[in-house]
């Protein structure tokens, strides 16, 4: 897990705009003071517990603390979630909902929105104090979406895929790392939620991939890339 203390962000020019890749699985857009995260999957721990998988409580609080650190580190004024803010159907009075609402109440000045993802049908974002955006959101030069698909209006930033890379090295077990994946017209953020899985990406030759490891954002050359 990454700690905020030694996190080393990585700046990148995307569609002509400078953006910051944060190793805590977030992208910061300085021009609009907007922090972007994807696939938070709040409430997954509870869904797992209801399904008989013993996962101790505390993951929502940990994810919220990570958000706090990110917002503070970058001085963000707005939080934009690229879909899947919540994981699944839940009991109406689930403890995690209260935690998220309390957190939201403590950040009254923060603008919070979510581009609805396939999981967000389970809980209305408004209940969590998030503005819900259906389909996509166009803010030049970017188009924000959940499922990443090219859009004529601009460079698409999305989530949904939970991209990652698998690294193999001599003398070492395989490492699976979350990653940012930027194609020529579409970019995909790593999943923010700690309880989410990874899908190894299969990048095209011109794509840029940045793995997150040990508090660093590491550009991955094709030579080191195995999927």
């Amino acid at each position, binding site marked *: 897990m990454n700690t905020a203390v030694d996190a080393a962000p990585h700046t990148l020019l995307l569609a002509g705009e400078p953006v910051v890749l944060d190793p805590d699985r977030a992208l910061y857009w300085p021009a609009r003071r907007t922090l972007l995260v994807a696939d938070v999957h709040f409430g997954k721990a*509870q869904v797992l517990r209801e*399904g*008989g*998988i013993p996962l*101790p409580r505390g993951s929502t609080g940990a994810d919220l603390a990570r958000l706090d650190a990110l917002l503070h580190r970058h001085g963000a004024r707005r939080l934009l979630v690229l879909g899947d803010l919540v994981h699944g159907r839940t009991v109406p009075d689930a403890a995690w909902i209260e935690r998220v609402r309390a957190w939201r109440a403590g950040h009254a000045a923060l603008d919070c929105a979510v581009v609805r993802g396939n999981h967000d049908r389970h809980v209305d974002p408004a209940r969590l104090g998030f503005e819900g955006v259906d389909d996509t959101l166009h803010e030049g030069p970017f188009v924000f979406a959940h499922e990443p698909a090219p859009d004529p209006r601009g460079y698409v930033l999305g989530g949904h895929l939970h991209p990652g890379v698998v690294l193999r090295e*001599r003398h070492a077990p395989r490492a699976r790392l979350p990653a940012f994946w930027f194609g020529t017209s579409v970019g995909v953020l790593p999943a923010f939620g700690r309880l989410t899985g990874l899908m190894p990406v299969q990048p095209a030759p011109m794509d840029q991939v940045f793995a997150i490891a040990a508090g660093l954002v590491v550009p991955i*050359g094709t030579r080191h890339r195995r999927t």
Partner: protein
Amino acid sequence: MNALRGPSMQDDAALARLEDWFAARGWAPASFQRAAWSRFRAGESGLIHAPTGSGKTLAAWGGPVLAALARGGASPRRGPRPLRAIWITPLRALAADTHGALQSLADGVGLGWKILRRTGDSGSGERARLARGEADALVTTPESLSLLLSYADAPERFSALEAVIVDEWHELLGSKRGVLLELALSHLRAQRAGSAAALRVWGVSATLGNLPQALAVLMGPRGGGALVHAETPRAVVVDSLLPPDTLRFPWAGHLGLVQLPQVLDAIGRVRSTLLFTNTRAQAELWHQALAAVWTDDPATLALHHGSLDRALRTQVEDGLRAGTLRCVVATSSLDLGVDFAAVDQVVQVGSPKGVARLLQRAGRSRHRPGEASRVLCVPTHNLELVEIAAARRALATGRLESRVPLVSCLDVLAQHVATLASGAGIDAAQALREARDTHAFRELSDADWQATLQLVEQGGATLGAYPDFRKVVRAPDGRLTIASRAAALRQRLSVGTIVSDGQVAVRWLQGGALGHVEESFVARLSPGDRFLFAGRTLELVRMKDLTAYVRSARGKPGGVPRWMGGKMPLSTELAAATQALLAEHDPPEPEMRLARPMLDAQARLSRVPSAADLLVEIVAARDGEHLFVFPFAGRLAHEGLAALLAFRLARDAPASFSFAVNDYGLVVGGRRLPTLDASRLRRLLSPDDLAADLGGSLNLAELARRQFREVARVAGLVFQGLPGRSKSMRQLTASSTLLYDVLAEHEPGHVLLRQARDEVLRGQLEVARLEAALRDAQARTLRLERPERLTPFGFPLWAESIRGQLSSEDWQDRVRRMAERLEAAT
């Protein structure tokens, strides 16, 4: 019951009918078969020790058949009837075969029994007939038996059960599958406890070093049970196919294809040959190589291994029975009791790695009564020459491997409790009694039992830490039941202890299954890539829903799938025999004469390792300095020892060391090693502070994290990928490493984390054996050599370290270093 009255008129009549059936085939019952039958009829349980092909199935099956004959009264043609007997087989693939043999005896004596199969392969029709209770007997696997216990009608279904027969018990002993079966047997015994005749449990086992223990584990802590031996084992003649020219003989791991012409000659001299390899990849490559030079009808050469589709395997097994095949290339998939007439010749490519395995494989060769069975070994590199000669010696002195039974696997216990709760439910106190009535849990502590209950009832030990957790609930009267129908369904989907990498089905584009390969192999392929599988060159067309669609291709394949567990470790017994043989001066075996130049080179450069000394070599090579140690203590203990050495070296002088191990020893290498002399080496190899140093070695956490994958799967914390699994199931996927991290953070004392660490220490690192190896090392004379180049014993280790997978470094440090290097390059 008849069993308690001793032999009666009905018994004599029944025996006569069974003997008639034998006589009609021109056979006579062997004395061990008679012994097993009469003990069964006397109400006893036991273990039949017999090699494959000796009539062990009839020995074990005769008992229940005689009991049914003596009871008289025919089974109804249709409709429900009481289930009398369960036959457990470790391999689904064996079920069809065994079923045929059991049914044919039952029909032959006019019993009119309906015997059903219940395995993962069973069709819906068979399942439905079983659900309606239309079976007198059942052929099943340990997992499917467990599954049957998860249904509410289990107590009724098993209420008239007289016998459980565990075939190939040696295959299950020593694994978690065996532990799962112990628990199921204990439950079935307890269900029969109130009735007039106790459940009779019989096992069938091949030769093992610890047969009395195998019997004791099967019987449980109450003991009893008879050990019935087949006739004295046949002598085995071990020949080697020695290459004409030793100069080209490699020093390290090789396929052995250099011997292809001689092997082809050997195959040509007889009518039928079974060619065993140690891995599936090796089988594919040998099959391909033979096919390229095969002059006979191509249909007479076949391939058989565990990843092939069942229909393909059945085809080969039928071909073996019909005698239409000249040569079958096979792996251990044919070690087990697939019944077919013996072949003319058995060939073993590479070292057999174990004495018992060689014995079993040799048993597949045709022999006349009183004659020895033979096996022709094909060494593929120099050290295998020594191993083959050592295996022959070990066979002659009867030194065979043991299978050490596992104890106290709380993940298996948690699964079993949830399984019973999913069915009719069980009283908590009764579940504890049944658990303690197994060998694995006979010393189960109250604390561990409570921890297991907490795991299935509330998720963990800390009350309130797992809100809304739902799996097993306890009623006020102490009865454990499953929380919901959905939970029961999930429990049924996670029954079993076999943890496999994601498997991808391989199918023809036009339909038809070829088998399974590991997901990680297919993930590296792109459409259009060619690979070798099922004895054919295939082209990947597309991947969809965990299925790789392929078509036939020409040209050179790009790769051969490798399956997990590809490396077969040398058994302790064979390692000891090898070491003893090396210590001898000029042994007479032809293999040893051929190995002489290699051993001379070893002696010239350094010295040949022996049991009295501990050989240590320090070699400076271009890629760094390497410390070789040769304790001959087994691959697992070497792994722990290498980690320990790397850790202690790094503690003295911070640096990064990589290591690799094999059956003979280990190598620790780095850019530079600290200055080492004999006394410093003794300190490095000291057994003092072993536990602390191993615990301090950062590797342990990573090993435990990886081991947790199996533990979490068995205990039902993660679900294995199932094709076509529902969306609601997909929502419940969480990787075991993630779970491990979260649990380690929030509940470090979690019972399953402890189990993962224990399994690493006991199972993976064999700490007890490691400690013994260290004490042993202190007692031996330490011989420190500094050869100017890699020695024949050091070379394979060095080669292994080149592609090794272990590092003493912290994982994060490694990524950081890699990251720095990458950043410097950009």
